[in-house]
């Protein structure tokens, strides 16, 4: 029974991996959106969405409209401590109220399915006494590590550095219309021009030409 419980626990833990609104780790340097944030304030409010901006006073978050991303992240009590801007999905949370948070800046891989291979070890007969828990440990560890990759929390990333992962790291632009903000899904709708652009580049820019990588004069 204990094996089954651990198996289920790991499976559940791992199932939260693989947010599709984020770029893959190898494309994140081209991402034009902010990182995903889960933020909780001291009153029990919770926000989940794209980090639009952050400064000394607080954070601006565009709540995800993708329902699969907001499970259990609805508002609870004390909503008055959050500022809803222009009846959109755009919210402000005071930095002094911000208690815990988690930033995810790239899409993690979901390795949870690999855990389903653990029961195959019963084909090992008596050795499965060893190989089953070993498989659970390895696949479970990989699944959890995979789901927790590309993340920072309040211990890794201080509040004052949150802006580095915002869409607008230098602060909320003046005159920004929140209703015009869209929940970005890197690599889908808005990445199409990017892909097109890359195609154009591949056609027009000869290889081994152009300025030196990261060169500074």
């Amino acid at each position, binding site marked *: 029974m204990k094996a089954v419980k*651990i198996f289920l626990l790991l499976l559940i833990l791992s199932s939260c991996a693989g947010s599709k609104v984020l770029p893959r*780790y*190898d494309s*994140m*340097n*081209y991402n*034009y959106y902010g990182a995903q944030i889960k933020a909780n304030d001291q009153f029990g409010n919770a926000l989940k969405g794209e980090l639009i901006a952050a400064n000394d006073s607080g954070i601006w978050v565009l709540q995800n409209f993708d329902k699969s991303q907001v499970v259990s992240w609805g508002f609870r009590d004390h909503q008055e401590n959050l500022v809803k801007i222009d009846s959109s999905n755009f919210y402000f949370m005071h930095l002094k109220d911000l208690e815990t948070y988690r930033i995810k800046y790239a899409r993690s*891989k979901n*390795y949870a399915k690999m855990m389903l291979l653990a029961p*195959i*070890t019963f*084909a*090992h*007969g*008596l*050795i499965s*006494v*060893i*190989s*089953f*828990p*070993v*498989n659970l*440990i*390895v696949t*479970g*560890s*990989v699944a*959890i*590590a*995979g789901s927790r*990759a*590309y993340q920072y929390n309040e211990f*890794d990333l201080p509040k004052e550095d949150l*802006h*580095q*992962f915002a869409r607008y*790291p*230098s602060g*909320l*632009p003046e005159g*920004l219309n929140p209703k*015009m*903000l*869209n929940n*970005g899904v890197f690599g889908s709708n*808005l990445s199409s021009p*990017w892909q*097109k*652009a890359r195609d*154009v*580049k591949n056609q027009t*820019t000869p290889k081994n030409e152009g*300025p*030196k*990588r*990261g*060169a*500074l*004069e």
Partner: protein
Amino acid sequence: MKNKALNRWHLPLVFALLVLASCQHYFFRTTYDSANEMLNRSKETNQIKPFLKAHFKNGEVVIFENEWEMDSSQQYITGQGTHYDVYRKTPTYGPQKVRISTVSLFETNERLKNPEMGRIGALTVIGAADLAVGIFCIINPKACFGSCPTFYLNPNSNYHHSDAEGFSSAILPRLAYSDADALPELPATSNLEITMKNEAMETHVVRGVRLKVFPKEDGKTVLQSHDHRFYSVKNGLKPVKAEGHEGDLLPALLAADRFERFSLAHPNSMKHRETVDLEFESNASAPLGLQLHFRQTLMSTFLFYSAMDDMGDQFSDFFAEMESKGGPLLKRFQRIQKELGGIDVSVWDEEMGKWVFAGTFGEFGPIAIENQLLRLPKFKAHQRVKVRLNMNQGLWRLDAARLCTVEKEVEPLVLQPTELRDRYSGKSEQLPSTEKPLVTNPGRQVIWKFSLPSAGNQWVAFLESEGYYLEWSRSEWVKDKNIARLTQMGVSPESYFRKNAKAYKEYEKTMEREFWDSRYSEKQVVYEGR
């Protein structure tokens, strides 16, 4: 079974999770409020992260490819990239020229070095290991799926903690025999239940199971001798010295704690003798006996299965012939076992100045630990009794040794079971006999109930089982038929042992060390790592 295994893995599990969970990549991103700062800091560190984003005050951004350059005199950054408006809706790709003064923040990033590599590597390794063990188990099912009926006082124990093992070498009806194993201390109840499991790909035919019990006496115990008699013994002395070719073995042989001494097979031949010398603080004035806790390694299992593997699709023909005719074929089959031999015991006679042969321990089976007595002949020893064990290298595992004073031969009280029932259905069954034996197939578990004259902990008990088992043929064996090798095994075992030493060493490496050692994660097992 699972609980104990998992308990053992709790600590490493938590550790592994913590280690893996903490593997994150930091410092791949840096932001600069000005181009000068970026320039100066990158000069200080002598490197710059190659991917540049220029964030404008109005919220727009230009993301450069990793090819860009800064013209500090003209105050421009140029390069190939994409410009996005504040809402990220109209990207423009192409050569970009950004005036530095319009940029409110520079962000540089470096490419993460495939962070998935470690995770994929771990999964690949475990997948390969699973596959290897799976193939091994197909080829050597006995090593993976156990053998012979196993008996348990605790029904939830697994084969690692089997209390007794029945008729391990009775592979045919004509080889049926009865086999008694010492049980550990019985629970303090007169109604004793013993669970018998079929954990192998075999059909077990059990003609009878009975308890042989002796009343406990202070300072004394009862041991079964290698020739299946029972003796009352006392004064069990621990060895003061134990040496093998690897050095001091004393810690392993002091107590029957499953902290065992074993050696690995000789690399040139599976048949190679080794000695272990024991010394006890005693003289030889009283009748003495050597008590030994021991069992076999998986070498005999390997040989048994290799033989059946070589029989290929004639497996059933060979077994039918051995059963119906016996004779030379059966003798050849049994010769292997005799070639490797048991544990020969000799004592040092100080007056004669030579080793005197005392007898041989020999019991087939790698699962349950035997606890047997070998009576020593009369010999002269003044201060110390010296005992030499001579055995095939890599075939035996020794758990503990004692020098006992043998009092007398004793007769057991034989108790027949009062009830037999299926463990899962609870349904009662008829007690077996030679004519109507109990037949069990893989996975079957039955419970034998005994009624003791008084509380179980007042008795020294032995479990005797009688019967035989039939090995199930595997389709894999058909593919590896090798009658020539099978013949060599029976006709020229010396040559067989030499030629197959390498194959066995491979088997031993994967099985003996990992399979058995893993049982005693909290204890160190002595072995010779040749």
